[in-house]
């Protein structure tokens, strides 16, 4: 993962609350098996509407999304984060985020900064008065600056550290593999295993689709 310290880019005001992950990327785009190439899918249903903010020339190249509360609710699809990143977004600012979305963002290097709704409103006004205005986001200082206005944002300390160092979670966990093995030695015998497979003898049916 790339290290993140500071980023400057065009701010995009998204005046909507409860933007769920079905809006960020509709299910029909989830069929791909790759991790990139989702930029066309971002906000797909709204992109057809000329008045949608990303269809306006000044905001098209945006990289800092300033959204309403409860951003990223609903489905756990990490595709929502990939679509935002593939489009070019590096940061999302909102007063509240859904837990899974925020977690997914942290794993993928997308910064989710929690800004008070009052300050979100101030940012919206600035970005709407002067479309194309840039925002500088400093992860080091936990601030977002737009012209004269600097607002603080919250982000989990550990996530911030990982983003700034560009560290991969699996690598970090495997440093403690000995602890995992030790824990496995203490697990109760009744805990189920998926293998060997057991199925319900009451129902014996032939597969409708022949095995490959």
């Amino acid at each position: 993962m790339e290290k993140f310290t500071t980023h400057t880019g065009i701010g995009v005001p998204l005046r909507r609350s409860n933007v769920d992950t079905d809006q960020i990327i509709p299910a029909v785009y989830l069929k791909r098996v790759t991790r990139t190439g989702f930029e066309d899918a971002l906000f797909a249903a709204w992109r057809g509407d000329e008045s949608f903010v990303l269809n306006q020339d000044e905001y098209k190249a945006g990289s800092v999304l300033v959204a309403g509360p409860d951003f990223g609710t609903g489905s756990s699809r990490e595709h929502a984060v990939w679509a935002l990143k593939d489009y070019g977004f590096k940061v999302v600012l909102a007063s509240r985020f859904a837990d899974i979305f925020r977690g997914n963002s942290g794993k993928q290097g997308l910064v989710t900064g929690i800004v008070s709704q009052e300050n979100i409103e101030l940012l919206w006004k600035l970005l709407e008065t002067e479309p194309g205005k840039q925002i500088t986001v400093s992860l080091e200082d936990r601030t977002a600056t737009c012209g004269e206005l600097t607002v603080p944002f919250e982000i989990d300390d550990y996530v911030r550290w990982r983003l700034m160092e560009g560290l991969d979670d699996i690598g970090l966990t495997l440093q403690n593999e000995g602890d995992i093995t030790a824990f496995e030695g203490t697990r109760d015998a009744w805990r189920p295993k998926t293998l060997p497979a057991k199925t319900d003898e009451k129902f014996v049916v032939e597969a409708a689709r022949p095995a490959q």
Partner: protein
Amino acid sequence: MGTTLAEKLWADHLVRKGEDGAPDLIYIDLHMCHEVTSPQAFEGLRLAGRQVRRPDLTIATEDHNTPTLDIDKPIADLTSRTQVDTLRNNAKEFGIRIHSLGDADQGIVHVVGPQLGLTMPGMTVVCGDSHTSTHGAFGSLAFGIGTSEVEHVLATQTLPLKPFKTMAINVEGELPEGSTAKDIILAIIAKIGTGGGQGYVLEYRGEAIRKLSMEARMTICNMSIEAGARAGMIAPDETTFEYVKGRPHAPEGAEWDAAVDYWRTLTTDDDAVFDTEVTLNAADLEPFVTWGTNPGQGLPLSATVPNPAEIADADEREAAANAIKYMGLTPGQPLRDLAIDTVFLGSCTNGRIEDLRAAAEIIQGRTKAPNTRMLVVPGSARVRLQAEQEGLDKVFIEFGAEWRNAGCSMCLGMNPDQLKPEERSASTSNRNFEGRQGKGGRTHLVSPLVAAATAVRGTLSSPADLADADVLVGAGA
């Protein structure tokens, strides 16, 4: 001070305590996979040269993309077929058990786990699907994860996690006839909001919850995510043990006894303190339906479409106005007057045998409204088989409903079962987001009882509405 159920489960799965602000490392007992959120995770393993640490704690099934008709033919949509084939190939390569389309144990991942007896009390259960909260009904800590976390669990069988806060949801009193678990959870979400559970594990408690069957408890826990919570849970009791006992993967003999001894300890201590508590009286609950485009925008069926101008909060007012526009509604319109094009009975929320039985009981001997279609999609192939053994399929077919094969179906627009633009549905699924059931589709979330009564009358209805002889026109015809 005592501890809550969630805290006990956390402590029992703690591999390593996080230091200096680092998250705890939590062991995962069961990892379920499906075709949509796993391909990039397996690819990540391949690129890093890693193996699946515990294939014996992992299981895969095909559900989101799978068609519910013509399942003996190759999947017509090529990208869907590629995704399903990718899961099959990954399962083969990494040695993971998979239940493919056509297999008797295929179905929606959250129906398959409990049915096989792989979900039981005292576990940690994850899946790359937000409705993994379903499994919390057994007194387990169960939650949805993103694809990066799927890869993490495949590689390490653990997850780095910060402890959740705890919220008690006390549902007291007795549920009136005609109201169901679905109405309880829709009312809870309307009360605390779609963000109300953020950061929390919800524990559903109280008299009304204790009286629910396991399948009804699963319906409640399933929609915890719709209140913003990662997980929801219900302490295990005799109802839980009875449900698990005898299932294919349930412990037997001495192991069963040891398990039950442990499971009995899985309750929140009397002196434990929750971070937040919410109380609801079940006796007040009427059948609940959603009118808007998030699951918190719900009202009793007897209500009218709200008027945004009367909503004080600016944000909620705008959200309501957007929703009413999208849904093609008029403020003040009675919800009961809304004509429904499609009734969908199914999904991981309400696609279990009890849901099918409840709906079949309502429609038996009645005739479907002529302009309403009804899709009945069992949550798993076994639910379908069970229903057929009980003759429910005949009841649905005689009524005029379509009897389909198992899968996520119309819950989300990833397979051929979709709404057309502006088509209005009464759906027993879990999300009424814009376009969720197909681009431009309009979704009203309902219980299986409301779904069935709606299919009879053609407008949003509860079984109580059917008591009126006038509406029984065509019954038995």
